[in-house]
């Protein structure tokens, strides 16, 4: 070993040129650094510099805040561990959360720590500073001032934040000639226009699903993803309670071209071309008026419409008709008329999103672009370069702009063609406010200081207005000052604590709809493409979230991409099969898509979802799936009539988590469906009423006060996947990536099984966590006792004892165990998921598993453990409701119950005595602690054979 003598070192050092200037520079930068690192936070914020008294390391803190979903607020309680938000749960006080979450809320913490988030402003010459942007903007705004903002344009998605609206309003007053264009790829123009047609103003209907006894959904996916999903799901489940009685128990009719989550939960489901749906509405309207309908329908649909209409009529006052966003405005207007005839439980409120039509905004924007009227363009957290319709001519118009800036979380497609890209703070990093779909306002409070040099939208808008160093906190407080009154600070504290601002819900208004005459549609000849937002990544904005990408879509179980679903009839005609790559052509645009053949679709309709085929989403989202935005027009965002399909001869594997095998009639055993009448008559035979199975082992007797158990009500499960992503977030479940999924390797501890009938029709959903069997087959087979039972009845896996024989999983009848084939969380992570920021999301109470060990659902043992510690400190036993598992907390419909069997009053004990109670594979004698309640269906007895 050659060693460097101190003399040589000194010689080497002396060669560095260290003149006076350089020394002063170093000194100055050192001082600046030390000042910056020890500075006080500029605003009140959760993470601490001096440890506050209430903060105990290891004890998580919970804060109410609000996350946005397509611009609407969704209240959450964020869990913060030593200043790091690691999990969000629902806020029971918030009307869009009701204590539950959806997949997007659960996944938001991963986006916060996404290594691909942009970290610093980027100017025309590369990485720049906010000051540099401020200078450039000021010059530009000086110009705008001289012409009253004639060249200033703001483009954004939906904005419901009162503070932002106030700021934009102020800005537009300051620059009267400036324009703000608001559009969402998932627009509600048809709904809005329908209301205008019916009521003369854009009222938003809010159906009170909980009070309904019959609902006819005309292509309305009210249980599917969206700002209303949680509230609608909760109401839907409450309207279908087993003890409701046949009169009150909700019956759901759904007519739609492509099976949706709502359709999968329907009692009667009809596959019909989207154009013909209006004829069903016309038939219903005519029946209600006592007239004869003059709208031609195929015989099956006619039967459906007649049955639905009769049912609606008989339950007037408790019957609702809903139309979907893809249906034309006339149909929405007609539905208002029908609901009025039915005295339907539907509230009408003034729109929460005050901006006008999305389509009009896009037209105006396109017009401005093509006529070069834009001088200063600010894009606020929108991505038109990816998701704007083809007419916009974005690519052609953009380079000509003198000044363009993009504010967003990612350096995305739009950022790439703007002069400036400005990094946006994540919702969990900034102060703001949001309104829920019903108008309820709530405050967005930060859980962490911005991780990078990012700013909030408030700050950027204030910058635009000429402010020098705007502070979001002050801006938000300013908005609410009038409401808070004299004792503003205590009002503010209360609002932050509650997570909602009381009495901000928009009051229902009464309005009488006009009668609109609409013509029946003729049977269409051409094929139609039906688009919908994606259940996993919505409109594409969540494309770089690995949890969401890997979240199996509720119906197709696809991950990491979209497919073009084709009805089996069309597939036969086109001679294509699942996995074929085809060219989808509409007008002069064509897109390559992968086919998935399904039985649950109307012939002549092809369907796919938005949001895929991102080009600059990041390491996770790039290249997954195909992009259908180029096919969309401003005025035809959802249905494209006249699409053609051509085979390419190529095939591609679709990464799915279920569906390599056809079901062989197991559904009645594993996911029994019972009607109300059958339930009343009593359920006989397996899987119900199975007696105890013979066993060689003596019964386990211990005096432990706990015996944990879970009961999952499959009747309530709508298949939304919130539990699955919640489990992933809570338990540090790694992402494996599309290649591993293709090799049938998944890590989700909790999966949602989909059962179908012989024809492929969805029969229901069944969340499957570990069963925690009392006679667990995994335990006796483990040679090293890594799979063992604890005194409270948990089947626990000792990770550091596991050597990976996988005997446990091969012997598990439920196949709920998950093996780390590679170091999915141990230096062999997918894409960039091994980078340091991601590690900040990990739940410190849960071990991150290494390569070669088996893992599985623990019933959130860390939560049980915390409850036990708290109880023992107070010298008592854990009370009912004190332990809430992550999946249970997330569930919008409260399908999951968890509790202590030794507590006689525990809810799980009551549920286990229900008639619908059954054990999955109970005949094997495993004595599972996770048990199920059978699915309840409510088919119309007058319908003839139930079709669902």
């Amino acid at each position: 070993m050659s060693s460097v003598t101190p003399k040589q070192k000194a010689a080497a050092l002396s060669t560095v040129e260290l003149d006076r200037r350089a020394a002063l520079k170093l000194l100055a930068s050192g001082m600046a650094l030390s000042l910056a690192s020890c500075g006080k936070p500029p605003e009140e914020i959760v993470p601490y510099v001096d440890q506050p008294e209430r903060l105990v390391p290891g004890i998580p803190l919970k804060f109410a805040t609000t996350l946005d979903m397509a611009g609407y607020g969704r209240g959450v309680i964020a869990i913060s561990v030593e200043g790091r938000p690691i999990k969000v749960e629902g806020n029971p006080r918030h009307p869009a959360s009701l204590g539950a979450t959806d997949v997007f809320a659960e996944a938001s913490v991963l986006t916060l720590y996404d290594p691909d988030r942009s970290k610093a402003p980027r100017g025309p010459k590369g990485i720049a500073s906010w000051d540099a942007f401020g200078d450039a903007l000021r010059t530009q705004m000086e110009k705008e001032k001289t012409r009253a903002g004639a060249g200033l344009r703001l483009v954004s998605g939906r904005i419901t934040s009162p503070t932002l609206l106030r700021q934009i309003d102020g800005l537009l007053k300051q620059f009267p000639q400036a324009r703000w264009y608001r559009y969402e790829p998932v627009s509600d123009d048809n709904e809005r226009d329908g209301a205008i047609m019916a009521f003369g103003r854009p009222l938003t209907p809010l159906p009170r699903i909980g009070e309904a006894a019959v609902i006819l959904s005309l292509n309305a996916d009210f249980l599917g993803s969206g700002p209303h999903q949680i509230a609608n799901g909760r109401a839907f489940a409450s309207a279908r309670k087993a003890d409701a009685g046949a009169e009150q128990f909700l019956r759901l009719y759904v007519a739609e071209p492509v099976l949706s989550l709502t359709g999968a939960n329907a009692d009667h489901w009809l596959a019909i071309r989207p154009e013909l749906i209006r004829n069903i509405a016309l038939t219903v309207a005519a029946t209600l008026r006592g007239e004869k309908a003059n709208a031609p329908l195929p015989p099956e649909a006619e039967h459906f419409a007649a049955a639905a209409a009769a049912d609606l009529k008989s339950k007037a006052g408790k019957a609702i008709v809903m139309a979907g966003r893809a249906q034309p405005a006339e149909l929405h207007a007609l539905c208002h008329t029908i609901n009025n005839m039915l005295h339907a439980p539907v509230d009408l409120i003034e729109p929460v999103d005050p901006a006008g039509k999305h389509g009009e905004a896009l037209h105006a924007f396109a017009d401005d672009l093509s006529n070069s009227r834009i001088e200063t363009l600010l894009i606020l957290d929108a991505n038109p370069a990816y998701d704007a319709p083809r007419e916009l001519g974005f690519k052609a118009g953009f380079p000509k702009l003198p000044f363009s800036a993009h504010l967003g979380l990612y350096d995305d497609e739009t950022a790439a063609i703007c002069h400036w890209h400005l990094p946006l703070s994540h919702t969990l990093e900034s102060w703001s406010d949001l309104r829920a779909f019903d108008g309820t306002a709530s405050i967005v409070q930060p859980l962490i200081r911005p991780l990078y040099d990012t700013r909030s939208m408030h700050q950027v808008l204030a910058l635009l207005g000429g402010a020098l160093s705007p502070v979001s906190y002050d801006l938000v407080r300013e908005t609410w000052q009038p409401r808070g009154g004299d004792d503003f600070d205590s009002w503010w504290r209360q609002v932050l604590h509650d997570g909602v601002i009381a009495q901000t819900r928009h009051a229902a208004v009464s309005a009488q709809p006009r009668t609109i005459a609409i013509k029946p549609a003729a049977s269409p000849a051409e094929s139609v493409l039906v688009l919908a937002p994606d259940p996993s990544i919505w409109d594409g904005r969540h494309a770089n979230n690995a949890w969401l990408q890997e979240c199996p879509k509720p119906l197709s179980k696809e991950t990491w991409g979209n497919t073009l679903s084709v009805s089996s009839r069309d597939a036969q005609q086109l001679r294509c099969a699942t996995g074929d790559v085809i060219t989808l052509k509409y007008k002069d645009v064509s897109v390559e898509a992968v086919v998935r053949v399904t039985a649950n679709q109307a012939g002549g309709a092809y369907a796919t979802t938005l949001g895929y085929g991102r080009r600059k989403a990041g390491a996770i989202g790039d290249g997954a799936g195909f992009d259908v935005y180029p096919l969309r027009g401003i005025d035809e965002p959802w249905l494209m009539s006249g699409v053609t399909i051509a085979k390419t001869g190529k095939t591609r594997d679709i990464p799915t988590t279920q569906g390599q095998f056809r079901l062989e009639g197991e559904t009645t055993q594993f996911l029994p469906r019972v009607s109300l009448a059958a339930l009343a008559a009593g359920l006989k035979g397996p899987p119900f009423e199975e007696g105890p199975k013979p066993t060689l082992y003596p019964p386990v007797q211990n005096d432990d006060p706990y015996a944990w158990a879970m009961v999952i009500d499959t009747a309530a499960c709508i298949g939304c996947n919130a539990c699955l992503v919640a489990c992933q977030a809570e338990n540090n479940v790694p992402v494996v990536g599309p290649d591993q999924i293709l090799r049938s390797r998944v890590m989700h501890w909790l999966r949602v099984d989909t059962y179908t009938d012989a024809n492929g029709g969805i029969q229901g959903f069944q969340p499957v966590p570990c069963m925690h069997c009392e006679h667990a087959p995994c335990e006796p087979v483990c040679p090293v006792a890594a799979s063992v039972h604890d005194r409270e009845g948990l089947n626990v896996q000792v990770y550091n004892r596991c050597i990976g024989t996988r005997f446990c999983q091969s012997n598990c009848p439920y196949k709920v165990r998950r093996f780390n084939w590679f170091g999915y969380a141990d230096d062999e992570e997918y894409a960039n998921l091994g980078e340091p920021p991601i590690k900040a999301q990990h739940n410190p109470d849960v071990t991150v598993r290494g390569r070669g060990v088996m893992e599985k659902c623990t019933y959130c043992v860390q939560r049980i453990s915390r409850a036990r510690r708290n109880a023992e400190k107070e010298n008592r036993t854990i009370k009912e409701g004190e332990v809430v598992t992550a999946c249970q907390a997330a569930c919008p419909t409260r399908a999951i119950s968890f509790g202590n069997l030794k507590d006689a009053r525990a809810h799980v004990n009551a549920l286990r005595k229900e008639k619908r109670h059954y054990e999955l594979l109970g005949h094997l004698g495993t004595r599972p602690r996770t048990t199920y309640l059978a699915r309840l269906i409510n088919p119309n007895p007058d319908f003839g054979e139930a079709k669902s």
Partner: protein
Amino acid sequence: MSSLALNRIDTPPADTERWVLPSGQSDEAVNRIVSAPLLQPHKWTWRAWWIAFAVSGAMTVMMIVSASWLLIRGVGVWGNNTTVVWGFGIANYVWWIGIGNAGTLISSMLLLMRQHWRASINRFAEAMTLFAASIAGLFPILHLGRPLYFYWLTPYPNTMLLWPQWRSALIWDFWAILSYLLFSIVFWYVGLIPDFATLRDRARSNLPRKVYGALALGWRGSARHWHFYEIYHKAMAALAVPLVVSLHSVVGLDFAASLMPGWAETIFPPYFVVGAMYSGFAMVVVLAALVRWGFRMQAIITVSHFDVMAKVMLMASIVMGLSYATEWFDAWYGGDHAERSLVTFMFTGSYAPIYFVMLFCNVLAPQAFWLPAVRRSVFAVFVIAVIINVGMWLERILIILNTLSHTHLPSMRHLFFPTIWDWTLLFGSLGFFTFMFLIFVRLVPSVSMHEVRHILHEGAQR
């Protein structure tokens, strides 16, 4: 090849001549035939041996590379998935351990049954056992998620006071392999001692004399030596039979002691023992044909040997066929949905073509042995034995794939697709086996000289 192909003897020989041809019917002739390749290697053409050595050496390197990559990257390089958590690793293990059974069966069970013809084949069959069992022992370790902790299967004293979990079939398995391996080494080596002495006495150069002398442990061939040897040998044989039966029964219990359809069957232990004997015999036939051809041992390994071994395989194939039929019948008769649908899946599911090939190899093809002409054609017996070995491997992989792919809950049913690393390890292990066997035949007498001499004398006494 012609000598291999049809070496027919039309007239049935006398009892001795049936097992040892006249050209080998003196003690010294036997010694000469067997020891020639060891003591006079320069008088021998080793071309075929060198080619085989090079090929199998290359395959051994392939196995080392494959195993190293497995250890570096993790067991995920194999095709196993969340549902089919076991795959080639376990199938290879069961197959190799099955082959490893036959040597001991031949040397002990046939010894106890006074089937003296076994003397000509038991030596290399025992060597085969040793190599196969060693290779088999590697697979369960390579198959582990964390192979570095394989020793946790042993009850070693540790600070955490943790012992293995004795209810697990894998622990029984671990002990079964270990004891079998140790037993096989001892049994094989002690059987070799008289032959090492023969070689020591006939060696002309210094080094072999010293090496074989050391290995012979001072064997002088005195009556007292032979007396102890005979007692020892019989006692070991008596121990070996239950050991070998228990070994493969335990392997069967790896599957049977479970809850999975197609595995939880009481027939598994005997069915696995027969299967093991079957594939082992087939491998012995393959090796016998090669040794006989390679070392010109037609005088000692006669066509009659192939004839009897073919009969054994025929019997085994019938038992196997019956076992399969019992499985199908039980599934139907038991009425359990999971069992019935599994059998349907075996015949109509994704692996059905492989299943039919397996049935052909294991049940149908050996039926040719009903014909004496086939039994007495060394080439035909050789080919069918290879087919049986392929069939038995398919059986082992299908036991795993069918049951695991077609699990209870339909949502988790997934197929298994092997990767390049699965295949390289399988073929690499074959190469490694050949490699070790080739070294064996160059250093150790591949036929037990003293036992063949024994046959001669027994024949003469009659």
